[in-house]
């Protein structure tokens, strides 16, 4: 892969995966102020790894692997529980927008209560990755991904109920 090809692929990947990766960073760190640092670290690792990309994995899966691994070893300045979700500002104009904003805030607060790995897994699921893709990203078996997601969903359900009752 020439340097120009690498740069073109990087720009393409950046534009394609930017939003999803930022959401993953946000759910993992639970802090908007640190998202930029982690996002930049992920993109740096994507750039460094591009020369080794052989097309054996789907491009999305490959990028999410880098994102998840970078997040796992990212040095966090704060513990997740120390800062509550500062959900990106929405322009609330209608009742439906208000409902969506509240649901989103509740979802963020519930995710913030999960463990590190579970936050990453649920983010991948919310981004639309299927069980097989999540297994390819994390390296655990598809069956166990199913078990894990089932547990995470139960925990989320419980947490969101608590959030709606003002527990967090």
């Amino acid at each position, binding site marked *: 892969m020439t340097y120009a090809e690498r740069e073109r692929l990087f*720009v393409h990947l*950046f534009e394609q995966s930017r*939003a999803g990766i930022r959401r993953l960073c946000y759910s993992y760190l639970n802090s908007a102020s640190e998202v930029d640092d982690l996002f930049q670290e992920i993109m740096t690792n994507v*750039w*460094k790894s591009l020369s080794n990309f052989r097309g054996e994995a789907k491009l999305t899966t490959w990028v999410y692997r880098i994102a998840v691994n970078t997040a796992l070893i990212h040095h966090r300045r704060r513990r997740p529980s120390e800062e509550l979700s500062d959900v990106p500002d929405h322009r609330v104009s209608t009742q439906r927008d208000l409902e969506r904003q509240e649901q989103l805030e509740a979802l963020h607060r519930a995710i913030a209560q999960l463990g590190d790995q579970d936050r990453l897994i649920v983010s991948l699921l919310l981004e639309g990755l299927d069980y097989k893709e999540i297994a390819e990203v994390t*390296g*655990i078996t598809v069956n166990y991904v199913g078990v894990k997601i089932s547990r995470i969903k139960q925990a989320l359900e419980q947490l*969101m109920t608590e959030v709606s009752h003002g527990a967090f």
Partner: protein
Amino acid sequence: MVPFEEDGQNGSRPGRPPLEAFLSFPAARESALCSFEELQQLWQSQPQPEPPAVAAESRGMAAALRRFRRRQYIFNGLKLMIIVWLAWFLLSRLGVSGLTVLGVGLLLAGMINPMVSDWRSQSAIARLDFTRPSVGFLDATLERLRDPNDPGAPFRRAGWMGIAMIATGANLIFARPWATETLLFRIASHTAITLVPFAAFTFGLKVRAKRYAIDYKPLVERLEAMKAALEEHDQ
């Protein structure tokens, strides 16, 4: 209250009716029916703070990466220049004799050998393969992080060898200038220049072990916990 579905990909199956809500928010208590698919849509529709020109930002980042690579080259070049200068300085000050050249050669080789071994170890840590699945990635990362603290690690082996070379080199360099001194002075001096590098290296290893405990141990423990959490019951 109905929980999320658990049996389909992404928590749902095509063609099935939407799940009943399990969410009940103050402002949406009456109407909000929220399946996992709806949560996915909600999640993916979150507004992003988009910069005015995304492509320009991408190119800016690529340029920053090129600058980073250039800086690395410059840094390594500077280190090489220092070693060349040291060789020239020692030879020009001490005079070129067979014994001195051999001594300076051993001294420099003794310095370069552990340095190269350390750089390789450092760059191996920095060159983690982020494209591997997380479990394998965590395994490889843990192995590389534990390496500096391992008594059989390449740095220690190269370090002891290097120190022996430095001590021998220093003894050879000073063998001629001290040839006219008393025997007692020569024995004391050679003993001192032999022991000092070994003592310094032993002290250095202790500092390194402390630095490891501060810099790496918490990370190793965190990674071990993460790996255990990922692999829990995945047999």
